[in-house]
């Protein structure tokens, strides 16, 4: 039975609706220059895959993530800076595309909430320590 299941898994064709083409040329090929590859990898780690939205394009197996990795590597190889590539993508997909969103009216709570919570914690702690001393 186990063998049968294993055999069935081996011959099963995936039922996903996905492209028959191989991944984009530079999707899974490192750049020859390790310094450029490191730059590309760092950027790929902080760009969101628009298909599987919880993953970075560096981690995603979605075909579109491959297209985006290829785009990042090609542009880095052409001498563009990671900031330029990130801005190009933000112009097209909005700040949602990056896991390191720039500060704006919408993202301000994201950046300010930890500071506000920390201050609130300090204030509560101070109040409770004072009470204890009084006792």
């Amino acid at each position, binding site marked *: 039975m186990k063998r049968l299941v294993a055999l069935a898994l081996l011959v099963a064709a995936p039922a996903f609706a*996905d*492209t028959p083409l191989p991944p984009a040329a530079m999707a899974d090929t490192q750049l020859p220059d390790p310094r450029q590859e490191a730059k590309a990898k760092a950027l790929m780690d902080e760009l969101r895959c628009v*298909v599987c939205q919880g993953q970075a394009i560096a981690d995603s197996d979605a*075909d579109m993530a491959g*297209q985006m990795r290829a785009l990042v590597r090609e542009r880095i190889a052409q001498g563009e800076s990671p900031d330029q590539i990130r801005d190009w993508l933000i112009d*097209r997909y909005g700040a949602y595309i990056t896991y390191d969103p720039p500060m704006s009216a919408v993202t301000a709570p994201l950046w300010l909430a930890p500071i506000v919570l920390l201050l609130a914690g300090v204030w509560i702690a101070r109040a409770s320590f004072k009470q204890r001393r009084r006792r």
Partner: protein
Amino acid sequence: MRKALIWLPFVAFVGVLAVVAIGLFRPADRDVRSALVGHELPEFALPAMVEGVPGVDKARFTQGTPRLLNVFASWCIPCIAESPQLMRLKAMGVPIEGVAVRDTPENTGIFLRRYGNPFVGVGDDRDGRLQLAIGSSGVPESYVIDGKGRIVLQHIGDIRAEDVETIAAAVRGAR
């Protein structure tokens, strides 16, 4: 006062339940919309994908007539569901330009023969570069472009029967 406080955890529980229920019954919109709506199409020129149907380039969209740009693929199942609606739009006189994403000429040809060809031109976007350049996050997607090359409307997902009138109106309104 103390007696009233005993209900506090229960109230908090009901609050959490309400948040979960809202999330369940009215799921958040997870579509990644293009930030280019309201802006001009980028420059592009895609070669023809199938014989007898020309390719697609930016110049097509700046001739004064509004057009529909449809991003599709033969490997995309909702694109099959969408094709009768595209044929309807074509019959209504909407010029539709197709962008075949990450596809082969053979498969695209079979797709167009089997489900009909609503397109004036079909461009070959083999590496998905145009798809990224217009902020599209999947197939199918449709963009209404006014006669000057500006994106007026983005429709994410397959066009259903009930969407046809909205899209046709947007094309008429873009004149």
